[in-house]
């Protein structure tokens, strides 16, 4: 291999990459805000005893879980404006697509931990005279939300990585800036290596935190 590496030309143009990273972080935070709140709501609805509520919500969740994220994003960008006559900025559209996708995955995380709260905990709540609403609020949710944190973090940082997909619909995120830079400098290897390292540098600490939380939870459970 006779390739001579030239990282300098990438570093000279770090300004656009930095701007791209900020857009990516903005997408991640906004999508997580949607994912954490809407996901919680969806989890409650999907456990409803009424099929009228349960079925459409299940369909919504499974649609996002069972189709590729890239299709969801493309569909959003091209179909929503036509079908619903809604025209939003590209970043807003990106946030919507990523946020709804994350909400579907988080809903499943919430649901699993809510249903994992042992039946006896609720029996104890009845024996102590708490009404159904109080049992959910003071017994089920605190435990369930705590137990779902590692999965929520994993999903959240997953969206940070998935957000690279919005580059294909011209959102000027880290990936988009990288592609542009690679074309301008004729240095795709260096550019994409550095971009990969940036994604890694943000994701890795989070995955370490998740590992720590899981180990701690196991220790607490024993």
């Amino acid at each position, binding site marked *: 291999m006779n390739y001579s590496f030239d990282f300098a030309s990438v570093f000279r143009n770090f300004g656009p990459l930095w701007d791209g990273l900020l857009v990516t972080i903005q997408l991640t935070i906004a999508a997580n805000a949607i994912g954490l709140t809407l996901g919680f709501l969806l989890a409650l609805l999907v456990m409803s005893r009424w099929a009228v509520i349960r079925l459409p919500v299940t369909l919504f969740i499974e649609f996002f879980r069972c189709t590729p994220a890239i299709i969801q994003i493309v569909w959003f960008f091209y179909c929503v404006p036509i079908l619903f006559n809604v025209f939003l900025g590209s970043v807003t559209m990106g946030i919507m697509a990523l946020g709804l996708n994350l909400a579907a995955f988080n809903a499943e995380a919430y649901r699993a931990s809510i249903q994992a709260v042992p039946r006896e*905990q609720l029996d104890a709540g009845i024996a102590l005279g708490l009404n159904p609403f109080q049992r959910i609020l003071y017994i089920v949710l605190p435990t369930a939300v705590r137990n779902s944190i590692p999965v929520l973090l994993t999903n959240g940082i997953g969206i940070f990585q998935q957000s690279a997909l919005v580059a294909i619909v011209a959102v000027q995120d880290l990936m988009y800036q990288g592609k542009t830079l690679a074309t301008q400098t004729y240095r795709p290897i260096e550019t994409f290596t550095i971009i990969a390292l940036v994604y890694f540098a943000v994701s890795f600490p989070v995955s370490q935190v998740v590992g720590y939380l899981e180990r701690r939870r196991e220790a607490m459970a*024993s």
Partner: protein
Amino acid sequence: MSDTAALVKIEGLHKSYGGVIKVLQGLDIEMKAGDRVVVIGPSGGGKSTLLRVLMGLEQIDSGSILFSGKPYISANGSGKTVIDAKVRRSIGMVFQHYTLFPHLDVIGNLILAPTKVRGESKAVARERAMALLTRFGLAAKANAYPAQLSGGQKQRVAIARALMLDPKLMLFDEVTSALDPELVAEVEQVILQLAQQQMPMVIVTHDMWFAKNIASRVIFCAGGVVVEDGPPEQVLGDPKEERTREFIERVFHIKH
């Protein structure tokens, strides 16, 4: 509804799971306020189900339960169980597997129901909680989380938590079965202490020594019916029924 009225009056209690597995098949039990009832019997005989029904945790097929002469639980015609929630609040229960709330510390576990159900102020509830914990030798653990406690400590906290609501009747469902042998005594001590203070209680246990020491009355339950019912010396020492005798012999044989 006079003082001589039964504290608990169970009549014709039937309970099955899906109509197929018949757990309780016509129980009649009358319990006076001074009674400390120990229910013994083979597993699957309906002991724990009886306690769970008494706590209002289960649907019943037919029959009724009166508490202090007032209707508490009954099955109406359409197969629905009607439970008086107000009466239910005067009964406390301790479970085999502690069931402390893992996200709350010991004090938090104790004051949750008093503050949320009765609207008691946090300060007052805390004070009462500390008094109870001190009595049970747990004052030092007030701010510990359940995961940091031994099984015996957890179970004593669970008892204290139930007592915070000033129950008129306490139900103990195999509360020492999950404990290491050396921790059983500290929990039984606390229950004996309550017995001395005339707390009416129904206890399901496999510990015959404990049964003998605490019971004013022993009920042998098998196949979903009361087989024998009497003072501990008689039911445990000289049972009339053949099934009781067989069971007692088998249990004591394992013990010694």
